[in-house]
């Protein structure tokens, strides 16, 4: 394991997330893609903290903050998904066309 391998892995995971985001139509899949992108960010932080950074603690702590805050974000996202689902709204972004123009 070296820094380059970790960064390449993170870049690949991030690219998978972006691709999944563009390709998927179901909201849950899109949220999973966003989680993939966030995981790539965390790999980046840990890799930089382990191999290179002058201040390794800061990077590790940042990862914990990312986990906490993005789960709050996802909790709100899932609440809205449930609100949509209860009203029989399709969970398909291609069919979210009530608002447009």
């Amino acid at each position, binding site marked *: 394991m070296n820094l380059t391998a970790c960064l390449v892995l993170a870049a690949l995971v991030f690219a998978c997330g972006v691709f999944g985001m563009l390709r998927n139509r179901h909201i849950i899949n899109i949220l999973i893609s966003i989680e993939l992108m966030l995981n790539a*960010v965390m790999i980046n932080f840990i890799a930089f903290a382990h191999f290179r950074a002058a201040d390794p603690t800061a990077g590790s702590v940042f990862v914990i903050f990312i986990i906490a805050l993005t789960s709050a974000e996802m909790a709100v996202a899932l609440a809205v998904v449930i609100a949509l689902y209860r009203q029989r709204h399709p969970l398909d972004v291609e069919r979210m066309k009530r608002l447009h123009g």
Partner: protein
Amino acid sequence: MNLSTAILLLPDALLLLAPFVVLFVDLFFNPRHEARPVLRALSWVLLAVGGALAAALCCGEREVVFLHAYRVTPWMLWFKVCFTGAALVAARMAEGCFAVADGHPARLTRPGEFFTLLAFAAGGMSVTVSALDLITLFIGLEMATIPLYVLSGFYRRHLDSAEGAMKFIIMGSLATAFVLFGYSLLYGATGHLQFSAIAAYLAEHPGDPLVRAAALFIFTAGAFKLALAPFHMWAPDVYQGAPLPVAAFLSTASKAAAAGFLVVLFYGPLAPVRPALAPVFAAFAAATMLVGNLGSLRQTNFRRFMAYSSIAQAGYLLLGFLAEREYAVGALLYFLVVYLTANLAVFFVYATVRGEDVAAVNGLSRTNPALAAVLMLAFFSLAGIPPLAGFNGKFWLFAAAAGAGRYWLVLFAVLNSVVALYYYMNVIRAAYIEPPAADARPVKLPRADALLLFVLVALLLVLALWPAFNRAVFAAAL
């Protein structure tokens, strides 16, 4: 720490206390969950924040640093003035939505939660502009955004609202992922999260490609938050779905927070990279002005109309980032204060007439001449007609861009202002010339609302004609 430095921290302390005060009041002094007691609690706390801000601006020190992670300086205080004022006016607008009869489409319920989230968002924005390391910046930005996701979907039983909120969350989370990727690259390149350490590294290695990539990622996220073209698509849908006071807050305080986020980074630790990104800023500014103005032309729904209008205004705003710090920050602040005032006045008029469509103000000069006059002055200011402060706001921004040598872009912005003049004038024409709807009754304005509107309009006139304000803002930005 003595009194004159501690006073700079007082507004933030009060603002972060506000949501807890609202929750407390709702829990113990509001058995029937009415809007009035919580609104009163929030308004008093926000007015206290305003007082603290005024005290900090006139007798505080130039700077206070708290635990190496939090910093307050005069220009940050001006941003906090924007957030507090917008929260105060949006809360006042929301009161009308809680008061309407059951079954009305604009009816809001659960005032305790609503005002708590509003206060949390304002507090988060205030943390964002004061951050002194990347962790604080990230926490502030998330704390400002997550409550806004909930607020924009606050009509739980309206599909439009839920759909708008979903789009907002997807776009917002994407922006979060981008900004975090940018932070991770910045951390990798510099090895630190502290702004001072990052700035020290960049002073030695100004051309580091990893830092440039990081700056590009961070700017993209800022573009999402500020709704710059081509990342503006979410804004009209979210505004249309959201309750009117939330749309007002999004188009004012949230824009100011996004601008503040970019100012904190691009005139802070990332300042050495900014000249390299100037062509990107210029391209985004031109595209955003064009898309916003052309989009506004064909809107009939009021909130969509204002969404495109505020996209166009964000395009003008971005011109400021082309200039050096001493011109840019003052011009941006002046523009933001004036833009917020005018936009809030327009939203307030529509909140009073309870209109979904732009045409809801048809014949307003006959049903309520004072409101029609407010609408006219606010739109004149947004369009940038000289005696009003909107003109000075645009003038400083255009002057900043011209000072950076971007004459063609300034010309383009001026042409865009002409297009904007057309659609703003169109609404004023409808308010003064079109006949009112057949079932229109005289619009009554509660005394507190009338006072608030008077203050907003007076600000539009006074800020333009009172040189001390110009001087104060530009001096604060140095």
